[in-house]
């Protein structure tokens, strides 16, 4: 089956989505990020099962540039564009997209099916998933139970806005004063919602329908708090965390248009490249030793070129690739 792959490498989690040519989701995976390489490997191992053939691949998120060089992805776009495209696919009439991720949050406004404006939090993490998780850990509950517990609360406590670290110390002191855990959690959800709006939505008009993406959208208390603060209804997709990965897969499908993919599931680490040089057939044209004197030299005895350095450095990779393509006798090869 021909598939398009989209991978969203965030700071907290890594998401992978596989779509078919009719833009249906074939398979998906959500992982906690460890290091980029092992997360990518796990995602690829899981998604590339059976007879799935990748005809286009896109990467997004903060680790996109490195991931692109590892798997030779065709498309690299920022996570904001990816979220806009993914959400637009899910709900074509969408006007406002809220994305609260692990370490950054964004607000995207659309008009007439075109992205009109976007804002992203600058340097503060107070309105983000990471600060909520931090608090959950300090209260000794699982982050998955956060929303359901908070919904039981009758009376939310007031927490200081603006700083995630100060908020978590206020939480501890509230607990020490004997406040109920659910009241504290509801207070946290409310503070996070307010912080998000203060950081990203200042002076912006949020039109309906409003879509809420990112893993934090599973937190029902946060959705409720946002609805309360904005004063409008919020729609949460079935799998809000996958919107970015879905978006980049869709972009890959739109932009490939029959082009050959360069995707390779084996990691292309430049330090693994080795030059194979059959100098017997060399015609000493100068293509190699004039363009890359640090790798090739002209032998004084027979005038043919000689490879003096086999391991290719990252910065020289493109140069050596070009030389190997231009070699008239095709005797220079790059191998893993």
């Amino acid at each position, binding site marked *: 089956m021909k598939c398009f792959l989209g991978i969203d490498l965030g700071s907290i989690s890594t998401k992978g989505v596989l779509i078919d040519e009719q833009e249906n989701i074939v398979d998906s995976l959500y992982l906690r990020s460890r290091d980029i390489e092992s997360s990518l490997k796990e995602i690829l191992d899981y998604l590339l099962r059976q007879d799935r053939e990748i005809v286009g691949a896109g990467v997004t998120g903060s680790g996109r540039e490195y991931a692109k060089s590892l798997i030779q992805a065709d498309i690299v776009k920022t996570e904001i564009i990816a979220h806009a495209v993914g959400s637009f696919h899910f709900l074509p009439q969408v006007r406002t997209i809220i994305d609260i991720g692990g370490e950054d949050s964004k607000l995207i406004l659309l008009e007439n099916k075109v992205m009109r404006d976007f804002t992203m939090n600058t340097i503060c993490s107070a309105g983000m998933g990471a600060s909520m998780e931090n608090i959950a850990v300090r209260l000794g509950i699982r982050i998955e139970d956060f929303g359901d517990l908070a919904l039981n609360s009758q009376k939310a406590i007031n927490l200081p806005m603006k700083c995630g670290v100060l908020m978590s110390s206020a939480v501890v002191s509230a607990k020490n004063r004997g406040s109920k855990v659910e009241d504290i959690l509801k207070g946290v959800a409310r503070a996070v919602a307010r912080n998000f709006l203060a950081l990203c939505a200042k*002076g912006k008009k949020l039109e309906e329908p409003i879509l809420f993406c990112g893993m934090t959208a599973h937190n029902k208390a946060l959705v409720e708090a946002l609805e309360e603060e904005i004063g409008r209804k919020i729609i949460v997709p079935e799998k809000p965390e996958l919107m970015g990965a879905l978006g980049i897969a869709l972009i890959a499908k739109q932009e490939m248009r029959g082009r050959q993919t360069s995707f390779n599931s084996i990691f292309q680490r430049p330090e693994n490249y080795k030059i194979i040089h059959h100098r017997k057939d060399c015609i000493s044209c100068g293509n190699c030793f004039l363009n890359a004197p640090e790798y090739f030299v002209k032998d004084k005895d027979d005038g043919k070129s000689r490879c003096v350095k086999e391991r290719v450095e990252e910065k020289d990779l493109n140069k050596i690739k070009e030389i190997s393509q231009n070699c008239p006798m095709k005797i220079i090869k790059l191998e893993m």
Partner: protein
Amino acid sequence: MLKHKSGFKRKIGLPYYSFYTRHFKEFLSLLGLDVVEPIPITEQTIKLGVNNSPEMMCFPYKVVLGNFLQLIKKGANTLVMFNSCGKCKLRHYYKLIDLKLRELNYNFEMVPIRPVDFIPLPLGPFMNKLVYLSGKRKWEIAKIIKKKWQELKEEENKRYLAKEFGKINIAVTGEIYSVLEENINQNIVGQLEGLGATVHSTLNLRALIIPRTFHSKERKLLREKALSFLDQSDPGGHGLHSIEDVLYWSQRGIDGIVHILPLSCHPEILVEEIIDYLCRKNEVPLLRLRIDETSSPLNIGTRVETFFELIKRKKEI
């Protein structure tokens, strides 16, 4: 201005200022002055400046202070500083820097150069300062000024002014130092050009120096219009210029405007609301980037890339 003891050898220190640095240095060298090689802005410069400035001070002040500290350590004893830009804090920079550096026990002379110095047309006060610094005759200096002025004009025209419209056109505006100095703004202009945009700007030093009476008619009309949004007076700095720019570029059908300002720049903060309004009204996408010591390349890069993509997608549909 001070009288110096005999045997005093003047060494000029110039703060780094984008591509203008080269011209300033050449100009002063032609006058026969000994100029310390200007030091490009690095993380070290910013660190030095931030450690010695009030927290809420504008970012350019911190950078210039850090740069002066580096220059003094390299042996500069005469600091030349561009001084006033209307009513904004820049006007008082040289006094504050002077105070701070003397407090740190450095001995030097501060020579501020202001746009008002250029106004009486034979360049009276400006010329006097140069005579004082170099000891040359006025007519000799005038010759060199004329030559350098021509060179400056050519370079500015090449870089910004005489640019044709390309496929995707983006204008940059805002506070002049943070727009032009690519070492503090993570090279936003370069990033945009790398993505394939044609970047326009009307910010340049000549426009700052030349008195308003010599500006083009269009620019004067725009100024009147811009003033009508305020209390008919200049907010200082490049505040008014930014409003003018938005009007100027939206008339020309620009695809997007990037507004760059240092974090606590008061003239730019004052006009933010007006710029937002004008961009909304003219349906021009706007990206506002606030620059300070904490802004990271990744952070700004993501925004710039997304902004470019937004415009590209809008144009395709």
